[in-house]
């Protein structure tokens, strides 16, 4: 049986084999990351999913109208559960959502807003892979469904944009994260582990269909 095991030299996401990265990332730093690298992310990231991507893509607000610095940051495909207490936002759960839904929007957003990372789950397609290469950006895969584990890697919910308009799930949240774990699965050198895995599974599929 042929499986596309992605070899790495550590047994858990907390191990020493991972690279620690601090945001904002420079273009060189983003280009120094390769598919297969495990990373711990530190610094400020923003969330954004369907409505936010649709808005940035269609309305094209200039950078100065967005209250957070997207340049060098990471857009996290995530619609969190946030509880508002008297004077702060308490993060309950914040795992990734399926990134592929945002495929048609992402290339232009990467190019226009200068983000250096896109994080989510399940990988993205050809257009995004191309945009990663053109602009110096990476796709980071984190753990789908591990929502409380990942929420506990967010030190603080600092702010939110478009909460009234888009609602809790679809708003842009600003998170300060510490040692937030992810794996680079698409890099700026044209490599996508998702594509490689799909090619392997296609070969298996053909074999399985031949034998009745």
């Amino acid at each position, binding site marked *: 049986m042929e499986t596309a095991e992605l*070899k790495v030299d550590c*047994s858990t996401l907390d191990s020493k084999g991972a690279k620690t990265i601090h945001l904002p990332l420079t273009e060189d730093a983003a280009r120094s990351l390769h598919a297969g690298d495990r990373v711990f992310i530190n610094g400020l990231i923003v969330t954004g999913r369907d409505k936010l991507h649709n808005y940035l893509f269609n309305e094209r607000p200039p950078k100065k109208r967005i209250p957070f610095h997207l340049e060098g940051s990471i857009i996290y495909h995530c619609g969190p559960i946030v509880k508002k207490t008297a004077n702060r936002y308490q993060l309950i759960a914040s795992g990734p959502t399926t990134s592929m839904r945002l495929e048609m929007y992402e290339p232009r957003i990467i190019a226009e807003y200068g983000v250096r990372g896109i994080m989510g789950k399940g990988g993205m397609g050809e257009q995004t892979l191309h945009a990663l290469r053109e602009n110096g950006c990476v796709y980071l*895969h984190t753990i789908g469904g591990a929502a409380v584990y990942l929420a506990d890697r967010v030190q603080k919910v600092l702010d939110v944009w478009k909460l009234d308009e888009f*609602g809790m799930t679809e708003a842009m949240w600003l998170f300060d994260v510490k040692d937030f*774990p992810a794996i680079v699965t698409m890099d700026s050198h044209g490599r996508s582990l998702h594509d490689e895995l799909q090619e392997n599974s296609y070969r298996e599929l053909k074999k*399985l*269909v031949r034998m009745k």
Partner: protein
Amino acid sequence: MTDLRNAIVELYRTAASSLPSDVDASLRHARGKEEKGSNASAALAAILENIRIARETGRPLCQDTGVPVFFVKIPCGVSHLAVKSSIVKATRIASRTIPLRPNAVDVLTERNSGDNTGNGFPVIYCEETKGSSIAIDLMLKGAGSENIGQLYKLPMEEIGAERNLEGVRRCVLDAIYKAQGKGCPPYIIAVGIGASKDQVTRLSKEQLLRKIEDVNSHQTLSAFEKRLLRDVNRLGIGPLGFGGKTTALGVKVGVNHRHPASYFVDVSVSCWANRRAQLIWKLQS
């Protein structure tokens, strides 16, 4: 019905924060099979840790608390409308107190109702039972895995599927191949076969209520389920799509009679977080 309503709020809490023990055990087993040091093994370690934290803190184990789907069995003489009303009220309370993520969006205005209630939301299926208790099964169906489900109308030339179990096998392989890691594997895969589109989608959902270790009472289907599980795991997609041995934890198949001209196959998929819980509500006599 206030007591029943409160019990349904607790049912929501259990389903959202406490993964069923059979799924938990199956994930532990899967981790043992993955190569040490692999991303698949690391991802499963994070998942197991997540399950533990959620159970201990009562927080929802996934931020997508999904579409609540209720399968309710109601004894003769008890009002279905009253039970449904209790479910809707409980949904509003649970959304606020657990909390659940508000997921009910008006298609025309794009407004989120804020409390997980709306037209056909939550999904509630009621049927009469001969028993003397109300039995409520709740499934919190995440959208990532719901989106990778597929409905097939056989025969289907593109995937070489004729109207037989071999054709059904090809449907399942096609659906999971197309899904890759997008719906949070390891998956629990459910199949419904029958005469009409609406019926097979419900039938497949019902299969997701079966425990992982549950063996189909029909011998042919039991063997078929085992075969499908073995085949799907050969695709090598692995936990979270990182590659590896466990793409699915289980495959469950349900069949109804079909029309001579129709052969519908629905493939419903659950993510690893197959959140289901049951409430048996004894009626006072």
